[in-house]
């Protein structure tokens, strides 16, 4: 794996700028609900946020019976929606729960466009190579 999003949860403030920019970049709309990462909020105690991002673990690819999810050279897994049969086997396998089901029932996943790291002002999400 040559690239990753480095997550430092202690720095997350829950601002959700990452979720805003994600859907603007990937879908051209303002709709954090569709974003490809999620922020877990542990309140009232211990009072912290935990970003969950795709770390390209490949579990979704392993679960796919049709080889519709596969890694690129840099290790980033991408979905081929023409091979996808909408069987839904992949969603439950994502350990970070960041594999998103689109209206077309095809999975959408983070492909390291880095937009979230560009808007994260605290260093909770950092581009690392």
């Amino acid at each position, binding site marked *: 794996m040559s690239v990753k999003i480095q997550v430092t949860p*202690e720095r*997350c*403030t*829950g*601002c*959700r*700028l990452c979720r*805003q*920019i994600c*859907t*603007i970049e990937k*879908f*051209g*709309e*303002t*709709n*954090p*609900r*569709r974003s490809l990462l999620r922020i*877990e*909020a542990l*309140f*009232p*105690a*211990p*009072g*912290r*946020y935990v970003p969950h991002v795709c770390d390209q673990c490949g579990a979704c690819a392993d679960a796919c019976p049709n080889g519709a999810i596969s890694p690129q050279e840099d290790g980033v897994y991408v979905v081929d929606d023409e091979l996808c049969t909408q069987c839904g086997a992949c969603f439950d396998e994502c350990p970070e729960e960041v594999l998103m089901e689109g209206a077309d029932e095809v999975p959408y996943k983070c492909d390291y466009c880095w937009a979230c790291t*560009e*808007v994260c*002002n*605290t260093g909770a999400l950092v581009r690392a190579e």
Partner: protein
Amino acid sequence: MVPGFGGSTLRIDLSGGTVTRAPLDPAFARAWLGGRGYVDKIVYDEVPRDADPLGPENRLVVTPGVFSGHFAPSGSKCCFGAVSPLTNGAGDSTVGGHFGPELKFAGYDLLVFEGIATTPTYLFIDDDRVELRDAAAYWGHGTMDAERMLKEDLGEDVEIACIGPAGENLVSFACIGHDYGRQAGRCGIGAVMGSKRLKAIVVRGTKALPVHDLPALKASTMEIMKRTAQHPNMAPWQKYGTAMFIGWSNEHGVYPAHNFQTTYFERHPGIDGQTLVDRLLVSHKACFGCWMNCGKYSRASLPGREAVYVEGPEYETGALCGGNCGFDQIEQVAYVNWLFDRAGIDTMTGGGMAAFAMECYEKGLITRDRLEGHEMRWGSIEDLEHFVDMLVERRGIGDAFARGYASAAAQIGGGAERLACQVKGQGMSGYDGRPAPGMLLSYMTADIGAHHNRSWTITMDEDLGKNVLTGKAKVVVHLQHIRPFFDTVSCCRLFWGEVDVSDEEHIAAIRMMTGWHDLTLEEILLLSERVWNINRAHYLERNGGPGRRFDYPNARFYEEEVPTGPSQGARLTLEDLDLMLDEYYAARGWGKDGNPSREVLLDLGLDTCVANLEREGLLGTLTEPLPPVRGERYKPKAF
């Protein structure tokens, strides 16, 4: 359908149990923008002048505003308003966090509640699905517990605004809580919610927010983000938040100590922003879309008590629940903050009421027998805990306090009203106006009573001279137009006030959101002035006139000299206050009696206000021509 907005409105009749959806009227949206604009227009038009604020005819208006949800500097706010049970005039309070944005993503710009539910109820919104549901399981629970329980039952991905036992029990300064520690604090809107037996509003939104020009908005916001990230003020704000000004406030002698008896608290280092960061801080906590993340989430332990988690203490709480009550340890202030947050009580009026009670106790105006055998000592956590209990449950004299300052003072007797630090019933914000007359004028003339968010002038007061009474009124008028702009578009003022994001940049962002290419700052300032005058008319129509008689603080502020500290000797007289009011009314185009004139109301297109006030003999008479523009922007001469 206007881009930038959610698109729909909901009318909820809690008596009949019905919900009616309608599209947002584009003309209404442009005329009143949102936030305070919607609140004040709707309550003026719909709430009968003799309606009980805690009765079925009052409206609870909830509105996220145009900025909320957008990728723009701090589009996070939601405004809650009604006729206030605290001031008996139009009231509103705005909360940050994530509630406003979620309403927008569900497609809503306005919720108007009327009536009273027969049993405890919450409103559940899941995009187009809107249901009134039984809240029996949550009724009686504190705000943080209720939020946690609702999220356990409905999913972690909902946003919630709810009241605590204080709102349920109609404490007149009850607030609305959200996101474990943000509040719509002022004006007692939580009591209006409680009077309707509405425990909470829960919302989940999954729709895309329509934007007129998203690429332009994105580019503009990214540019502002990069620029402001480097601004010298950004790092301290991110690290310390509002609490860092406790020291400044003391050093400049405007800090409330011991119920505003004086304006300097020697032990203030124990309760300031550095101390919060050193001893309490768990996380920096941001509102939606905001990189200033000024919120501070804290964990505080007091001996013999379980640790509490609380957002804050923010400046106002650090002032009004800090030195004002004689607490000198940050853990104590955080604990008091938590007590009020849990109960759903505004920490500002709550701290003010507690301090009022403490001074009355010190002076023997209240004795232990009226406190169920307890005391009410300065800086005593156990005494304050018991007081809050009596207040929330409305036991004994707690009931009088729950009704507000006038009622408490009447029950206490002995001239206690001199010590009740408020205007129009709203507890005074955490700055003393005797060393800053412009600030006192701001408190006196704010539509919702002694609140600082309409106009804040401490810097100008120092600049022009702390003893200077003239020349400040027209600036107060201008501030009362520009600051509410942020309340109508539901955007936090901190980017404008602290890191140099200009008025024009905010207007440009709204144009990109909505496509309103011809929107100007002048239009918005006029809207603010219109809303201001509507609120004044509303106040007079509900309370009678002349308006002037409501525009004074308690006698402490015109009879007592500041005894100690950097502002020692600061003293204002009733004549000083009258001088400032005269100048203010003239600057506003109001009569000397504080009533709006026909001329200014017609100039603003407020024919209905003219008719209503005229019928009651409440129009003011001008003795000079109406100023063509009311209010003047302040250019700092020293800065």
